[in-house]
């Protein structure tokens, strides 16, 4: 089977849905007789029972509703049922009921056909979308640099959408509509040749003229599609590059560019509407021209007696059913051309060669064979997309268990060796083998598990750090999904009907075996080990300590954390460094906390409850006013503001320092300066509420060890502790759920894990206090077996889209950890840690090499870097310059 997309939409539809299309045709055909019969009934009712035709005497009866089968090739007909013998009233009732019956039968047919068509269309749409994404996953690597992701997304999401609606209609609708139109036309013909011919003539004009006029519409629609796709590409570029655009002050160019594109789209669309409504007008006119002829011509014939009135009424009634199908047929034809163009546009964008063959990505749940033999480069050359030579005539052999460093500045060719082995690019000349087979012939399901590659910018999908770590292990559904969550038979059936795979997304896709772990606990150990190896364990441990306990609380942990708190307090007070932490004591002022934190003496549910955020009319202001505390805080805030304004001036060059102080928002400095002027020498009673609040907010953020303005007198501290008690008593009930007060015997869900265990704050300015406290904390958590629980909380950290909430160095470390976790046989690190400092890199390299050389689970390493800093750690050193291997040294 060729791996090209089918270019012809109809052939595509036919290939994938012939049986269903034929079935629809059959059903449509079956629906035709009743449809046709329904036309004749009104005439019979009017001419017969209503006007009295055939019922000239009161007791006259007639046979109604005979069943007659005509022979289309001859004159004879067979009467199967001669009809019911009924009087005038009976005939009226029977015929009317028959009419109602036909209406119901026709409606039921229509319902069935429409539902069937809808489902067929949706299945085909699903198939098409799936195929497109499937192809994206098989694109040759350089293609990913050429396409804009948002355009691909637009095509798959929006552009193929109208195809779904059309596919169900592809064969059945024209058949059905043509059948209807022909039936109506035939009926008119049978009633009156003259009127039939007139109708036919106008129809022919209509069907020839309208599609011609619509040709231009189609062209406009195509332009509309392309410009819209372009627009979505541009918009996503603006979003992705927003930082650079703004940092280079080129926002207005983007504005004008967007405006320019929107103008283009506007004119295309406007042109489109002008034509669309013009064509509509002409079409409607032609459709209404026919009844005009009926009324005039038919009327004359009827008046002269050449046509009976019942016939004319029937012709007009039949005609009522003609413009509909005709208009829809014309619409269908337009839609056909439109979707064919759209389809071709989309399909061409995905018709990229060479696609990876499907079997290279086949699902493998079993064991994947190990790699065999060294990587052998024979006269290998490679060029970039512009044709520039990146590496030429390379002869090189790298063993699977070797540890090699390849050194070369960017563009010197060192990274090309890694890219070639990872098959991110293909040699332009020469052969690249692994053992005796061509490297290119290995399936992705083997290389993707056996070779590990880490570049400088690893990608992570939106999710938690844990998801990111495990994302390298999602090879196949290894274990069935949990009970009751498996795909239902209906879902499986539908997947089959749409050519989608039947792998269960909800199954456990994690390849535990690849990590070397067989139980959940061993996996935890492996994750810890790998994170420690890339020097990331501390970071996630710290993330874990900073998480609020309310996030993902596991009930049993709570008691454990309380235990940890008690143990921490005991060990701290036993040791020499009890002063490292200032504990939370409800009757004492805590100097490590801000004034606000001292008053609340607990944690808040959301940032809106913090002093910089709570609104001017918040009830909290009233709580602060008790016992004249507000006056004292106002004084403190005013003094602090005066120092800040004096030091930084109205416009500060030292914004960084000011931001770090976290006392006054740098942008509000002029406001504070003005407020200081306004309130100079004023009595508190005369100061406006706004100015009071301005300064009180500053006071609430004040923390003596951090700001060191020497403003917190002992009396004020006492007043604050007193206010703390009042705050607890008088907190309005509707705010009660927003605050959780520190309580030695209770976990505080709004506070961080660290605050909960220390139940105090590390004292500022004691050298080594942070390290000592952290060490003690780790010791206790390890003793209680909570280490991994903390790390796991840290791993629940949402890393953001593309991992943007991590620093570049953390992303690089995480990328390396992800690959190490699946224990590749050969690891390529292509400048994968270049954002880290040298000492850390050295530690990581040493760790990886130790692991690589271990007997069980050892692996080969190709480390690509620009500097020689760590070359001495590797057994083999390759140096590249200007695309050539210039030195290859192996130490003993």
């Amino acid at each position: 089977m060729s791996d090209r997309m089918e270019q012809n939409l109809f052939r595509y539809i036919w290939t994938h849905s012939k049986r269903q299309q034929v079935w629809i045709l059959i059903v449509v055909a079956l629906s035709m007789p009743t449809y046709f019969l329904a036309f004749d009934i009104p005439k019979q009712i009017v001419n017969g029972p209503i006007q009295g035709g055939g019922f000239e005497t009161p007791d006259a009866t007639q046979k109604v509703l005979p069943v007659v089968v005509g022979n289309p090739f001859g004159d004879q007909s067979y009467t199967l049922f001669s009809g019911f013998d009924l009087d005038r009233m009976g005939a009226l009732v029977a015929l009317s009921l028959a009419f109602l019956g036909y209406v119901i039968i026709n409606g039921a047919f229509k319902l069935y056909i429409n539902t069937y068509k809808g489902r067929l269309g949706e299945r085909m749409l699903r198939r098409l979308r799936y195929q497109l994404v499937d192809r994206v996953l098989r694109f040759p690597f350089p293609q990913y640099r050429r396409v804009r992701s948002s355009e691909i997304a637009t095509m798959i999401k929006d552009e193929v959408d109208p195809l779904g609606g059309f596919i169900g209609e592809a064969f059945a609708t024209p058949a059905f509509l043509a059948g209807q139109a022909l039936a109506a036309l035939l009926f008119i013909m049978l009633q009156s040749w003259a009127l039939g011919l007139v109708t036919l003539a106008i129809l022919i004009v209509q069907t020839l003229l309208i599609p011609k006029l619509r040709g231009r519409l189609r062209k406009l629609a195509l332009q509309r599609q392309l410009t819209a796709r372009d627009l979505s590409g541009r918009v996503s570029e603006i979003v992705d590059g927003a930082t650079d655009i703004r940092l280079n002050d080129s926002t207005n160019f983007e504005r004008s560019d967007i405006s320019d594109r929107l103008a283009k789209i506007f004119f295309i669309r406007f042109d489109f509407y002008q034509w669309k409504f013009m064509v509509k007008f002409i079409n409607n006119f032609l459709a209404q021209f026919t009844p005009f002829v009926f009324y005039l011509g038919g009327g004359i014939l009827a008046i002269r007696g050449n046509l009976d009135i019942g016939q004319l009424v029937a012709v007009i009634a039949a005609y009522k059913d003609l413009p509909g199908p005709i208009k829809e047929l014309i619409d269908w034809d337009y839609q056909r051309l439109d979707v064919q163009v759209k389809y071709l546009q989309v399909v061409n964008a995905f018709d990229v060669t060479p696609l990876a063959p499907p079997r290279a990505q086949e699902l493998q749940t079993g064991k994947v064979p190990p790699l065999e033999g060294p990587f052998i480069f024979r006269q290998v050359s490679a060029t970039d997309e512009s044709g520039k030579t990146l590496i030429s005539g390379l002869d090189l052999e790298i063993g699977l268990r070797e540890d090699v460093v390849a050194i070369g500045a960017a563009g010197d060719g060192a990274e090309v060796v890694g890219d070639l082995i990872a098959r991110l690019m293909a040699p332009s000349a020469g052969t690249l083998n692994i053992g005796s087979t061509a490297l290119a012939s290995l399936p992705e399901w083997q290389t993707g598990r056996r070779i590990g590659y880490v570049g400088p910018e690893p990608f992570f999908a939106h999710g938690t750090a844990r998801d990111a770590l495990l994302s390298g292990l999602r090879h196949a559904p290894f274990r069935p999904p949990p009970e009751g969550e498996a795909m239902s038979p209906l879902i499986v059936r539908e997947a089959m009907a749409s050519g989608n795979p039947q792998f269960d997304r909800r199954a456990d896709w994690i390849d535990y075996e690849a990590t070397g772990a067989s139980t959940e606990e061993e996996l935890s150990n492996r994750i810890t080990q790998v994170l420690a190896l890339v020097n990331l364990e501390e970071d996630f441990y710290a993330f874990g300590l900073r998480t609020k306990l309310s996030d993902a609380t596991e009930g049993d942990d709570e008691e454990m954390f309380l235990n940890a708190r008690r143990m921490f307090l005991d060990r701290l007070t036993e040791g020499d460094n009890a002063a490292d932490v200032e504990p939370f004591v409800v009757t004492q002022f805590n100097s490590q906390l801000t004034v606000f934190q001292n008053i609340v003496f607990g944690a808040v549910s959301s940032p809106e409850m913090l002093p910089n955020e709570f609104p001017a009319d918040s009830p909290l202001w009233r709580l602060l006013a008790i016992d004249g505390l507000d006056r004292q805080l106002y004084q403190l805030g005013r003094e602090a503001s005066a120092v800040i304004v004096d030091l930084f001036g109205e416009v500060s060059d030292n914004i960084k320092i000011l931001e770090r102080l976290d006392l006054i928002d740098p942008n509000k400095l002029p406001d504070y300066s003005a407020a200081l002027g306004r309130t100079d020498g004023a009595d508190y009673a005369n100061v406006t509420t706004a100015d009071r609040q301005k300064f009180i907010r500053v006071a609430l953020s004040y923390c003596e060890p951090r700001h060191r303005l020497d403003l917190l007198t002992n009396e004020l501290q006492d007043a604050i502790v007193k206010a703390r008690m009042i705050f607890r008593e008088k907190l309005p009930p509707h705010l009660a759920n927003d605050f959780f007060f520190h309580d030695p015997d209770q976990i505080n869900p709004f506070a961080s894990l660290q605050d909960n265990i220390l139940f105090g704050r590390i004292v500022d300015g004691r050298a080594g206090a942070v390290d000592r406290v952290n060490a003690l904390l780790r010791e206790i958590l390890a003793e209680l077996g909570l280490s991994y629980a903390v790390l796991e909380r840290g791993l629940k950290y949402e890393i953001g889209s593309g991992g943007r909430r991590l620093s570049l160095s953390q992303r690089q470390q995480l990328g390396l950890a992800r690959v190490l976790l699946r224990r590749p046989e050969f690891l390529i690190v292509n400048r994968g840690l270049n954002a880290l400092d040298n000492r850390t890199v050295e530690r990581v390299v040493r760790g990886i090499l130790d692991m690589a050389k271990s007997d069980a689970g050892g692996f080969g390493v190709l480390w690509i870097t620009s500097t020689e800093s760590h070359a001495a750690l590797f057994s083999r050193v390759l140096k590249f310059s200007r695309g050539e291997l210039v030195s290859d040294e192996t130490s003993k």
Partner: protein
Amino acid sequence: MSLEEDALLLAKVELFANVAPRRLKLLALASSRVLFAAGQDLCVEGDEGYEAFILVSGEADVKIRTPSGVATVARLKRNDIVGEMAILRDMPRTATVTAVSDVSTLRIGKQDFLNLLKEFPEVTVEVMRSLAERLARTTSELANLRSAAKA
């Protein structure tokens, strides 16, 4: 240990002799007090350095590793500055500084210090002078050690 005190302290440091008082107050605000217990290291040779310390009280020894063992090359006292070398360029600490008694220091962050140098060329000249002095001192210490080793 208030801001005012710290600013006065900074003014007494030779390096900052010519810096405007208001600027020193700002530097003091950006800095923080750090206490070291006797025996604790202010910085360790070979570590990355992100900060400089000014001794407020107490004394500390400057030690370097030599092939013949650890040598104490200087003793720091009140108003001495240490650690500024490592933040001038991105290189590891060149010496280990250990508190002899309990030492109270004022810690200045790397960026704040660099900003100060940019703003006040006089400070840069002072830094150069002190570096030159230290180099001369270190060289002579080294010579002494060498001759001692030979003897």
